[in-house]
């Protein structure tokens, strides 16, 4: 492949979840001949099973395509896919920094959503050219003109050039490719300057070491070159270079403007920080690229193997996963109830969910997760600040001067008729009202500061139910604020179970406690004896329910045909039992630990 910056286009696709980003990417791949239709799995770029099943993109992904335009020239397209979920905003900004343009996909039936808006602004901040695309115009309910108006009014960019496509049927994909050639600028870095390449992702490969995905901003790099990572200040010799189309094609050299991968026998992925700049060791660039902000996990939970023999396996699995996921953090911890495990940090609840599923599926480890917590800043009477990510570690209240908790700034977009219920919800969730604006004549944007713990708790579900699913929302970390917080313990059969402790807002403690124990009651299997479940604050019981003893649990009729059927039923129960943890004399299923999360006070 002859390479010339002039004939290169580097772009991302930005879209709200379900607006058809992955399908559109597949169509582009198909039309540029990257993959034959025969090899085509649905949604090529979402390579993890989990991504395909859930219809989400988790990791970013890059692919090089070639396209012969109507102008007779062959162009190299580098398509850098981005995740759509708020948990992975960080990954979006990483992809965008490697591009000159972004294709903005808007669903012709849905219009612009809050999450899209957030990502478009990220793109604009990165000085990218935005090419609007109206998707799903094959649907009878499509309103392309309305969607274009939305783009102009909401985002404030021209929609004149917007291409109307159907990713599903392939309609107008050719026109889209032509628009990419025309509207997205070619890279224009200095080919003769010292090497400057942006690391936008990396992963570990057991044969080649760390594989770095880079975008060459200036200069070029060849196999055998002595390179340096400017931020981590490590140097290596390049052993392999190439592009992914999406199969890897090895190259001797990557030139200015190109997107590709680089291997240099790098053993430790922690030395390769996304956002870092690769330069020449002998002829270094004077200044590194701006890079990315550091990401910090926002949500923490305890991860324990159901079978304590799996501890080492869990450790190995977490290590392997963290090789390709710098945002996953973990440190060993012990729980009286659950034994040895890890306290893990995640970007958000979806990230936590994804890691849990990957551990269970890919590494075959049955897990108990404790309810997620945020990091509290606990100021002690001696003036020290103690960060607490595990409620059971909260010091005695006599030693605490005050507790601060993290807040987020949340933008909630909603049809105007739901503004009332949302404000009520935010109030209930201890929100601080910041702003309310019309987005268009039917929709409004509400801005609130909310405790992250309330977001983690059940804000999402509540928001969905009070707006019939019409509201969308995103958030960014804001500041720590002091709150009236206390630790609530749960006792099973008279014993405190540390893994069930939570930090709660004092005025809501009673309702929360009642909710938690009622929920636990529904999931704890009955035993031969009655089991009291109690909620306690500072050693004082505030609420109690009992799990009744089992009296009759047997199939009355068991003759010829019932036998196999009965065994099948029991097999199912056995599977469920495997996932239970014995705490004292009580068997506790996974759901009990999550019950701290999903309760609904009004249910009681």
């Amino acid at each position, binding site marked *: 492949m002859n390479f010339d910056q002039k004939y290169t286009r580097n772009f991302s696709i930005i879209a709200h979840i379900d607006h058809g980003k992955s399908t559109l990417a597949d169509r582009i791949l198909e039309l540029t001949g990257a993959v034959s239709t025969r090899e085509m799995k649905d949604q090529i770029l979402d390579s993890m099973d989990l991504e395909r099943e859930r219809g989400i993109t988790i990791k970013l992904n890059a692919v090089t395509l070639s396209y012969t335009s109507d102008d007779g020239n062959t162009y190299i397209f580098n398509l850098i896919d981005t995740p759509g979920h708020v948990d992975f905003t960080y990954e979006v900004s990483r992809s965008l920094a490697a591009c000159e343009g972004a294709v903005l996909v808007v669903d012709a039936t849905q219009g612009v959503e809050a999450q899209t808006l957030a990502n478009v602004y990220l793109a604009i901040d990165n000085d990218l050219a935005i090419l609007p695309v109206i998707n799903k115009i094959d649907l009878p309910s499509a309103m392309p003109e309305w969607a274009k108006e939305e783009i102009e009014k909401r985002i404030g960019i021209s929609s004149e050039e917007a291409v109307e496509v159907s990713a599903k049927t392939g309609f107008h994909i050719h026109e889209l490719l032509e628009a990419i050639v025309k509207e997205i600028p070619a890279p224009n870095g200095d080919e003769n300057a010292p090497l400057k390449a942006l690391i936008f992702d990396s992963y570990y490969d057991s044969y080649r070491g760390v594989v770095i995905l880079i975008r060459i901003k200036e200069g070029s790099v060849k196999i055998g070159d002595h390179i340096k990572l400017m931020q981590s200040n490590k140097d290596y010799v390049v052993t392999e270079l190439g592009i992914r189309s999406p199969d890897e094609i090895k190259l001797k050299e990557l030139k200015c403007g190109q997107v590709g991968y680089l291997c240099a026998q790098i053993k430790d992925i922690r030395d390769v920080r996304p956002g870092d700049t690769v330069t020449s060791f002998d002829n270094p660039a004077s200044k590194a690229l701006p890079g990315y902000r550091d990401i910090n996990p926002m949500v923490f939970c305890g991860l324990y193997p159901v079978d304590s023999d799996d501890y080492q396996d869990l450790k190995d699995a977490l290590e392997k996963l963290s090789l390709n996921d710098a945002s996953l953090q973990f440190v060993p911890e012990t729980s009286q109830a659950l034994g040895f495990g890890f306290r893990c940090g995640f970007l958000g609840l979806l990230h936590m969910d994804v890691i849990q599923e990957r551990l269970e599926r890919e590494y075959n480890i049955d897990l108990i997760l404790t309810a997620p917590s945020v990091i509290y800043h606990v100021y002690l009477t001696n003036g020290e600040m103690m960060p607490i990510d595990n409620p059971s570690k909260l010091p005695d209240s006599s030693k605490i001067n005050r507790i601060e908790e993290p807040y987020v700034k949340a933008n909630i977009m909603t049809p105007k008729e739901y503004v009332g219920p949302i404000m009520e919800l935010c109030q209930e969730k201890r929100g601080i009202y910041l702003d309310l604006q019309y987005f268009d004549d039917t929709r409004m944007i509400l801005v609130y500061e909310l405790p992250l713990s309330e977001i983690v708790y059940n804000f999402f579900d509540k928001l969905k139910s009070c707006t019939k699913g019409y509201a969308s929302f995103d958030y960014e970390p804001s500041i720590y604020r002091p709150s009236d917080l206390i630790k609530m313990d749960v006792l099973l059969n008279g014993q405190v179970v540390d893994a069930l402790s939570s930090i709660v807002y004092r005025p809501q403690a009673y309702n929360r406690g009642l909710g938690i124990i009622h929920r636990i009651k529904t999931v704890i299997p009955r035993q031969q004896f009655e089991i009291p479940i109690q909620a306690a604050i500072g050693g004082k019981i505030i609420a109690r329910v009992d799990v009744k003893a089992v009296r009759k*649990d047997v199939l009355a009729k068991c003759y010829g045909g019932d036998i196999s059927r009965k065994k099948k039923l029991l097999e199912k129960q056995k599977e469920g039992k495997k996932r239970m943890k014995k705490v004292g004399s009580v068997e506790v299923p996974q759901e009990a630990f999550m019950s701290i999360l999903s309760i609904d006070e009004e249910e009681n």
Partner: protein
Amino acid sequence: MRTKTNLPSALYIHIPFCESICDYCDFTKLQYFHSFAVKYLVALKKELIERVTNKELRTIYIGGGTPTSLDDLQFEALLKMVEPYSKHVEEYTVEANPESLSLSKIKLLKKYGVNRVSIGVESTNDQILKSINRKHTFSDVKNVVKNLRDNGINNINLDLIIGLPNVSFKMLEEDIRNILSLKPNHISCYSLTVHEHTVFYINKISEPDEEFAYQAYKVINELLEKNGYSHYEVSNWAISGQESKHNLVYWNNERYYGVGLGASGYIDNIRYKNSTNFNEYVSFKNEIEEEIVTLKDEKDYELMLKLRTKFGLNLVEYKNKFGVDLYKSHTQVIDDYVTKGYLIHKEDYLIPTFEGMMILDKIYLDLQ
């Protein structure tokens, strides 16, 4: 490879017809029509001859549906086709509804060597019977029992359902007293289960709650034990020595033939279930569902089934058969159940008490 097991010495035959369909029944059954029954008996005979290779059977059980819904000619044809298998039989049971067990059919039973009859009494309250679409009264039951005895069939089982809608505790005790007055050899009491595709399910009738069912079993057990019946299986009581030999085959995890529409069987290491599609069955297209029973499955079945009866699980036998010392691997669990009065650990046996029988599913799971 596992060693070949003995041929089954028990046979179950399913007659799917009923004169009317009861509101709670989910067995494989259909409305009786003369022509259907003719076709059915042809297909049944074919399966019987092909399937049942052992003629030295110990027990035979003809159930349904309602075997007595057949007309007399068909009924005799049925008994005749079974005749070659019943030469050495120790226990030969036929299920019957009180309203269709005529004197002529009783004489046929006697003629062909049937020595046990199981009668679906369900309730002894005529109003309740009517409300669940049963066509008999309690006086029909009394007559049938008398007729059977007059004709020399003395081994009689009476079936009762616990927890039917609108049956109070008092009525239940009344039921038991009525049943006892007939001095049956064997009594079965089943707690109502509501299955999909039944009138009960459609009318959203709920199963008795756990506490009611437990108390009902407890009261029944006390009354029956006082009158000389022994609680030998979860839902079954008998005068000592008169336990159902055929049903014990199931609970002892032994092999049995099953013949007929939707019938189940266990031969070698296969548990199978015949097609439940009548048209297929009578056109000799019997699609059989098979479950291959591995040694581990057999072990699980053994545990699940043997703890159902007062004869219990022999731990030494279990160890020899499956190489697992259950007491050793579950000492704490077993001792705990023993201390709390759910199990008796006597010599080599693990035997459930009444309380234990009531929570067998839980015990089974805890012994995994």
